[in-house]
């Protein structure tokens, strides 16, 4: 029989114990009667011999070894009874705890799913990403195809694969549709350890020029377009005007960085950039070979980088290679945000715990007489401590259960609320680890909350508490209260400062000039008819036709093409020189280069500073020209008036390009991010001067931009209809108004602000109720003292001042503790959130009075009540 079943049969065992002892007594008495004693006398003798029956029973129970469990059950029943008698206290406590636990559990679930859990690939800890890096551009420089081929050939420590962005129009079977795609090397799936749902990955012979066009499709495309046909492998479809044979279907949910529908072999590409060592567009995931460490792989890759640098100084000078864990790479963007939020939520939970602790302390003090009575009746100190802990653990269990329930309800809304796409969002689940965290957090916070009352358990039996008739001996606990209130103030202050700094930053950032006029501007990516991709002339003619059609529409004022759009994903950074001779590699400046048509400046409303913008006369046969922004002019020539100067851009060839105009700087990297970005120089070159062989590639990245007469998004449907093309195989996608993009560029700051504001508000509310509760309690304890003071002549004002001074001291202590923490938190925000500026003075100037006013209001009610004390009745309480 184990202790559990023993506990369950507790009442049966009690009966048996009773029966056993009764038998003993009867037997003994019978024997004594047999020896000639009077039956009554015999029974008395037998009882005396056995001793007090209750004491014997108690000792037997102890001997059973289930004592603590029985006590626990008893304490639980007692606690439940107390809760029922004071449901308000229990409800408030459980609710506060549940909110804290719920928020913390949600954040932990996100951190766990995104940052902690290994990637959903087999043996994921051996997966890495290889990067190029240069001094001037920094890390996360892509790979050029020849460099990748060399790395793949030379490396002994890594199994490498590569991918780049693709995408295009599927025109058959079914209606034309633009889909995202990826061009991948043959080994990609096997490197990642992915087994296709159907069919197979690419074979090496398919990953080369001139091989049969084959494709792997996503399971979502398979279901959407092929109705989940089980024999889809081997079927044909037309992608970018070319028939492809389907060889495989990816497992559901598979994605490299973002979802894509069509995967094609990288090696079949014939574009010139496939041979260009200076075109860094490949992502290189790799798997560390068995028995090799990350450090070994890192040093080998660095060595290969140096070898290639020596071998190809023209293209590779200053370009190094580095290895990072793939997981770090995938979550790089969100890691600091997630930790920030988890820390903030942790602060809220701490405030909640402190609040509950002070509530429980108040209750413990009001129960001091009960404790003293129990000690007097023989309860041990540890027994009472266990009773207190049981009570708080019970609150923890309820709070935790409710909190986990709240977490379960709110996790999906929270993920949807995340600005942009949260990497690995699909891998966030409330799994056992999250549950364990939630339960652990609630029990440990409840336990900590329960520690305060334990200190109130009297040390000796008949304590002064009994004699004092419940009057406060407030010395020790008022100090403890002070610590509670001050720490609540400090924590709330930290959150308030964070929220204030974020609000301040967002206000400043929103008022920044983006460098263009975002009102009434519509942008959209566009895929021209795959049939037109055959030769450069056709491509140019098709784009011209698109522009002409747009311009004829009544909704449109002006239209232009551009390969990159400010504040949207996608960029093209090129190095430039002011002399024909290359400067030292680490000093080579880089500019954001945008290929546009002449009306671009007019559409975007970018101001012209000097000279002219690109115009219709800048064509393939005329001299190559660029327009530069004022930053580039200042950096390269030290003057804004750079018209007529020359630049050498290696990507454009050896001949110099003429600067024809200087335009205003555009905050391409977002209102928040632009000031900190590495590439702040910008240049524009004519789409008409893009060399013929590159046009097919450029076609895949060109977007259209329009200034509209109507609200921009209302023009999308008419545009779609107008631009379908003769064969109905042209597609407009990702339409965005520039105002949307500007606003999205602050989405993370706004998101953080909303959350921090909520957290800070909650913390302030908790701290205020904390102050209120504590002040109400402390003044209540001092009623008789106040009565005496008033009896000897103190006025209402004096008493009000007395109480308020006490609370001001507490707030001041909290602020003293909070300021350094707030400074540290502000530093973390500046470090991890783009666009944050130190604004301590302004923030403190708002937040300190806010806290003081809250504290003032919270303590005013108790203070007023104290000042209204009638001295006679107060003294009579004695």
């Amino acid at each position, binding site marked *: 029989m184990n202790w559990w079943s023993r506990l369950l049969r507790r009442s049966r065992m009690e009966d048996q114990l009773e029966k056993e002892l009764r038998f003993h007594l009867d037997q003994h008495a019978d024997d004594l009667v047999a020896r000639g004693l009077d039956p009554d006398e015999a029974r008395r003798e037998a009882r005396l011999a056995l001793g007090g029956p209750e004491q014997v029973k108690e000792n037997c129970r102890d*001997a059973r070894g289930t004592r603590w469990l029985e006590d626990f059950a008893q304490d639980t029943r007692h606690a439940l009874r107390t809760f029922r008698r004071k449901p308000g206290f229990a409800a408030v406590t459980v609710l506060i705890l549940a909110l804290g636990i719920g928020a913390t559990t949600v954040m932990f679930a996100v951190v766990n799913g995104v940052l902690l859990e290994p990637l959903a690939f087999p043996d994921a800890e051996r997966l890495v990403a290889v990067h190029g890096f240069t001094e001037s551009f920094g890390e996360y420089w892509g790979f050029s195809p020849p460099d990748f081929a060399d790395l793949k050939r030379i490396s002994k420590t890594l199994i490498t694969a590569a991918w780049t962005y693709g995408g295009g129009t599927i025109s058959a079977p079914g209606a034309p549709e633009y889909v995202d795609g990826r061009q991948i090397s043959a080994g990609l799936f096997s490197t990642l350890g992915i087994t296709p749902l159907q069919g197979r990955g690419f074979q090496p012979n398919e990953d080369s020029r001139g091989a049969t066009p084959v494709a792997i499709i996503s399971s979502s495309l398979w279901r959407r377009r092929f109705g989940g046909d089980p024999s889809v492998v081997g079927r044909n479809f037309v992608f970018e005007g070319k028939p492809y044979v389907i060889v495989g279907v990816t497992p559901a949910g598979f994605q490299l960085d973002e979802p894509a529908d069509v995967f094609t072999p990288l090696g079949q590409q014939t574009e010139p950039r496939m041979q260009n060592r200076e075109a860094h567009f490949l992502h290189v995931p790799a798997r560390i070979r068995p028995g090799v460490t990350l450090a070994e792989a890192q040093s080998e890759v660095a060595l290969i980088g140096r070898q290639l640098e020596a071998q190809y100084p023209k293209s590779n000078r200053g370009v190094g290679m580095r290895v990072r864990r793939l997981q770090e790479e995938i979550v790089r963007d969100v890691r600091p945000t997630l930790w920030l939020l988890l820390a903030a939520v942790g602060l809220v939970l701490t405030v909640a715990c402190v609040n509950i602790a002070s509530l429980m302390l108040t209750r413990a003090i009001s129960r001091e007489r009960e404790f003293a009575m129990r000690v007097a009746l023989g309860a041990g100190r540890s027994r009472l401590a266990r009773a207190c802990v049981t009570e708080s653990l019970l609150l923890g269990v309820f709070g935790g259960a409710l909190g986990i329930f709240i977490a379960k309800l709110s996790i999906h809304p929270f993920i949807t609320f995340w600005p942009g796409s949260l990497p690995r969002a699909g891998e966030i689940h409330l799994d056992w680890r999250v549950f364990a965290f939630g339960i652990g957090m609630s029990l440990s916070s409840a336990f900590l909350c329960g520690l305060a009352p334990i200190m109130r358990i009297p040390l000796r039996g008949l304590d002064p508490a009994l004699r004092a008739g419940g009057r406060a001996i407030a010395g020790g606990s008022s100090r403890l209260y002070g610590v509670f209130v001050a720490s609540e103030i400090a924590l709330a202050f930290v959150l308030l400062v964070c929220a204030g700094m974020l609000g301040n930053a967002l206000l400043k950032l929103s008022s920044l000039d983006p460098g263009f006029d975002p009102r009434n501007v519509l942008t959209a990516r566009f895929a021209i008819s795959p049939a037109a991709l055959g030769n450069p002339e056709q491509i140019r003619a098709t784009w011209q036709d698109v522009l002409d059609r747009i311009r004829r529409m009544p909704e449109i004022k002006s239209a232009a093409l551009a390969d990159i759009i400010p504040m949207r994903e996608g960029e093209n950074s090129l190095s430039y020189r002011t002399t024909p001779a290359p400067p030292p590699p680490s000093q080579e400046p880089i500019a954001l280069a945008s290929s546009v048509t002449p009306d671009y400046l007019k559409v975007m409303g970018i101001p012209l500073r000097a000279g002219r913008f690109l115009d219709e006369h800048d064509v393939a046969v005329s001299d190559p020209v660029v327009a530069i922004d004022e930053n580039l002019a200042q950096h390269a020539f030290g003057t804004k008036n750079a018209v007529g100067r020359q630049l050498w851009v290696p990507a454009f060839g050896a001949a110099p390009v003429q600067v024809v105009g200087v335009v205003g700087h555009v905050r391409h990297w977002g209102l928040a991010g632009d000031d900190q970005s590495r590439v702040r120089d910008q240049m524009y070159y004519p789409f008409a001067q893009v060399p013929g062989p590159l046009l097919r590639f450029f076609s895949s990245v060109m977007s259209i931009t329009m200034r509209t007469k109507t609200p921009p998004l209302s023009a999308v449907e008419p545009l779609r209809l107008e631009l379908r093309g003769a064969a109905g195989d042209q597609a407009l996608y990702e339409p965005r108004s520039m105002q949307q993009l500007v606003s999205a560029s602050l989405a993370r700051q706004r998101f953080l602000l909303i959350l921090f504001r909520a957290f800070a508000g909650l913390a302030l509310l908790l701290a205020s109720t904390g102050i209120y509760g504590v002040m109400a309690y402390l003044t209540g304890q001092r009623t008789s003292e106040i009565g005496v003071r008033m009896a000897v002549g103190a006025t209402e004002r004096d008493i009000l001042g007395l109480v308020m001074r006490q609370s001001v001291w507490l707030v001041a202590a909290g602020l003293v503790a909070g300021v350094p923490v707030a400074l540290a938190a502000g530093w973390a925000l500046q470090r991890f959130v783009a666009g944050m500026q130190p604004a301590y003075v302004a923030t403190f100037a708002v937040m300190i009075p806010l806290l003081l006013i809250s504290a003032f209001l919270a303590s005013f009610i108790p203070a007023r009540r104290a000042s209204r004390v009638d001295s006679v009745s107060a003294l009579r309480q004695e």
Partner: protein
Amino acid sequence: MATPKSDLPQGTLDLLILKAVAGDPLHGYAIAQRLEQVSRGVVQVPEGSLYPALHRLENRGMLAANWKKTETGREAKFYQLTRKGRKQLEAEAASWQRLSEAVGLILAMDGVVR
């Protein structure tokens, strides 16, 4: 009843109980009776400690208990030695034997006791 009573040394009650039930199963009262009889009245079992000791030994698996009818027809809880209890009894009895012999030897030393 003139025999002087001796207090039981600490920890010997368990040993005596185990020995008492080494034969037939006995109920608590009978155990107390037997110990007193066998020791010719020298050992007075503190009845207040007897039952906690029985429960403790049962809890540790030294004793097994059953409810059975006595000869007078009443139900009583009978304790019986388990295999574990028997081993414990042998070990403790041997150790007690050694200890009491040693104490006896020391007390028998010449010239020490005056």
